[in-house]
């Protein structure tokens, strides 16, 4: 197999989707873990320290490049896959199969992914771009135990004081949940897990993961909007 076949053959493409998808699944655990520090009820100290740490070592800067490569590979390959798959049936059916045999979210991965992509752009604009490049008037400086750092907590509270932003974030988490309910178990099938005892376990763990991660992310803007933290 030539390297290029990872991106051109029908099965190779799926391996790329699965490996990048699994990588994103791991990333989300780290991301949610750090953000959960906002619930420490200490005015954001713990969260700011964690966020500062994530920007302070060269290893994490390298991981960030890996993350962007992974996301873009997943997105580009995802659209290629969807477009090519759609082109394989020029003439469709008069009576569509609908839900007879498959779940709506398993057939809507590209749609759910597109919602996620649009959300990412907004999300990067809200936090990543100000923190890394252009700053923001609500992104003040703070001094914790003699270390200067960004007050990301402040920027978060400002961002989530707008209702429409909170609603968009919650909607994106809803899409994430359905993308992952299918994607989590699908990724393991794609990388060749065929034993039914594991598949049953993976399916259940996948549902648990999808619901917990999405709910955790959704509760962050909600908590801030409602003034819980």
């Amino acid at each position, binding site marked *: *197999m030539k390297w290029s076949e990872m991106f051109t*053959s029908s*099965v190779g493409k799926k*391996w790329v989707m699965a490996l990048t998808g699994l990588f994103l699944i791991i990333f989300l655990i780290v991301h949610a873990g750090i953000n959960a520090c906002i619930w420490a009820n200490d005015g954001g100290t713990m969260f700011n320290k964690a966020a500062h740490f994530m920007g302070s070592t060269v290893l994490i800067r390298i991981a960030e490049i890996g993350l962007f490569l992974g996301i873009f590979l997943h997105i580009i390959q995802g659209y290629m896959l969807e477009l090519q*798959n759609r082109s394989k049936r020029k003439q469709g*059916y008069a*009576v569509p199969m609908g839900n007879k*045999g*498959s*779940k709506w979210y398993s057939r809507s991965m590209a749609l759910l992914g597109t919602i996620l992509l649009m959300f990412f752009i907004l999300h990067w604009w809200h936090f990543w771009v100000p923190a890394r490049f252009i700053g923001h008037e609500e992104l003040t400086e703070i001094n914790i135990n003699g270390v200067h750092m960004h007050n990301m907590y402040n920027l978060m509270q400002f961002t989530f004081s707008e209702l429409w932003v909170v609603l968009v974030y919650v909607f994106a988490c809803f899409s994430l949940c359905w993308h992952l309910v299918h994607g989590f178990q699908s990724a393991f099938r794609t990388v060749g897990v065929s034993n039914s005892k594991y598949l049953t376990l993976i399916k259940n763990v996948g549902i648990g993961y999808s619901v917990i991660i999405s709910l955790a992310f959704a509760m962050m803007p909600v908590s801030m909007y409602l003034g819980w933290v």
Partner: protein
Amino acid sequence: MEHYSMNLTLKVWRQKNKDSKGAFETYPVKNISSEMSFLEMIDVLNEELIREGKDPIAFDHDCREGICGMCSMYINGRPHGPWQQNTTCQLHMRAYKDGDTIVIEPWRANAFPVLKDLVVDRSSFDRIIQAGGYISVNTGSAVDANAVPVEKDNADAAFAAAACIGCGACVAACKNSSALLFVSAKVSHLALLPQGGPERKSRAMNMVAQMDKEGFGSCTNTGACEAVCPKGISIENIARLNREYMMAGAGSDK
């Protein structure tokens, strides 16, 4: 169950040949017995069409007992009709009641072009088999049948995969027109048996390459194939093929 007879409305895809456009035609059928098979019901309609001097509906069929895989009709939005693990030829009219409307379409996929009416060209499947769905055996005197031991679980799984009759319903049901259930059944069948060992790697690579060349799509594990497969082929076979493919591909020199 009690016998009954029914009148139905059929909407059938009619297409003169590969190059013509095709359209649905509506046919009323009367006095259909609940004991008839679906194909017998079409036979009744065809005899009437012939009597009227019209062109009968072309459809594929051979054994009419669920073993050859020739019959192929997409009935009311489901390949092989409403019953589970069932072929069109084994569908019986007791699945319907008086006054029903039934829409009948051919399998739809670029890799299965319509030849006439409900008949599609499935020779793409034959070419996938020719690319690797076999084992090479030396000529000479036959080996004793029990000379090669096979583990029972593997024998059972290989047997279950070998049940695939190559009907193509999996492709017809798949939103991506993927043939992976078919290909994975054929690859699994041989990969699980010692006789399939020598050509194991080239088989997985070559069959997938041929499948791609024929214009089938990529699997996204929606499970629609498994739901309509008349032989209950499990999508666990697809996971096995994904593994076989990468083991063979990543381990190759080229």
